[in-house]
């Protein structure tokens, strides 16, 4: 059961990403729930769980689209690992830490994906517009994290119920 919870989190993220996210896009900008799920798992369960969840979430994201399969798996995996490592090695504490980590790791994942596509010849990169789009999407994801992170963190630590955001963070 313990190992199933991150898998269930990724599955719920997949359903939300396909069913809800496309309909709540604002001016073409949409949150990335799959990255957020992997990053949250990384922060709560550690770098290894983060990278495995990121790999699974990225693979699903690749299969949903029409781009090269393996590209999102690679960057989401790195994002999950990064989130877990930052959380594990930082002394800072408080409610803002997970949000800041979520913002920067999502930005890293989105920008990394875009750069990887350019490397494999799937589209040229013009940094101005693309970076702005990635930054806005990361902000949107961060806004979603305000609600989603405490819920998912609590779900992931179901054996240790916690009630405050600070303790969850």
């Amino acid at each position, binding site marked *: 059961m313990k190992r199933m919870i991150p898998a269930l989190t990724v599955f719920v993220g997949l359903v939300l990403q396909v069913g809800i996210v496309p309909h709540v896009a604002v001016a073409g900008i949409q949150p990335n729930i799959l990255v957020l799920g992997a990053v949250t798992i990384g922060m709560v369960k550690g*770098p290894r769980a983060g*990278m495995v969840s990121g790999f699974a979430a990225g693979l699903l994201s690749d299969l949903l689209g029409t781009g090269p399969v*393996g590209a999102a798996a690679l960057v989401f995996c790195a994002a999950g690992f990064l989130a877990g490592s930052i959380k594990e*090695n930082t002394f800072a504490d408080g409610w803002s830490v997970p949000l800041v980590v979520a913002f920067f790791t999502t930005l890293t994942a989105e920008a990394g*994906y875009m750069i990887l596509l350019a490397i494999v010849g799937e589209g040229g990169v013009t940094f101005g*517009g693309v970076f702005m789009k990635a930054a806005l999407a990361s902000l949107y994801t961060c806004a979603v994290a305000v609600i989603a992170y405490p819920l998912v963190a609590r779900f992931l630590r179901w054996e240790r119920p916690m009630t405050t955001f600070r303790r969850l963070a």
Partner: protein
Amino acid sequence: MRVSSRDSRGSDGLFLAALVICSLLLLTAYYREGVDGPIRAVRSGVQTVLAPVGQAGYVLTSPMRGVIAWARDLGVSRADLEALRQQNEEMRRRLAGLEEARLENERLRELAGFVAERELDAVGAEVIGRPASLWEGVITIDRGTEEGVSVGMPVLAAEGLIGQVVSAGPYSSSVRLITDRRSGVAALLQATRAEGIVRGSLEGDLWLDYVSRETTVSPGDAVVTSGMGGVYPSGLLIGEVADVQLDSADLFPRIRVRPSAQLAGLEEVAVLTGARTGLVDTGGAE
């Protein structure tokens, strides 16, 4: 904060390296396999299974708009609001139904008129899925091979060209929008007849490339399909020039095109199942 031991950090690094290698192997396999390869088959299966989820999401998100309206009405007393709600419930339901039918009727008439005017064989379709990723420009429609849709067919909205079918299942198909980074359409500027290629981009903008430096291009110029290559019939409206940049070092001007169709809010489209090549391009004479 958790303090990890050196051993666990070392094994995490090895684990990460293993997953990175898996990803790279997948990427390599994806590029090496053919169009009927196993990875593409799995992708097609996943997308077919998840197509109804996207459709259900559209229905599920409708109440969110209702929540926003409810929040706006919070200033009114609850008793008044309840009385008004009961009084108008039936009327609003009917009105909403009629308005929806009227708008759909208008859109379908416009779309049917557009297709009939050009003597194109087409099948109408509804959009049932929108891009699930920031960098994707692919929508899902509710028509597939059972209705005669196949890969490569152009897809139109009432305002003009929107894209091309890139994969087709029995009852649904994926359509790559012209703004997608991998899209390319042979096009020409209607006024000057200068040819080029309209390409999408990661940002979702549309660019007209390879137009000669000597061509005079002005914002507002119509961009239509040229028919070169035989994929798209000629004369279909793509959009209009939004702005032009030309530096002294550039080989070609950078022409940004504003799509004529509202690609973000598409609901009904037409797939050209029997598009004739060599349609007469009026060149704006009509």
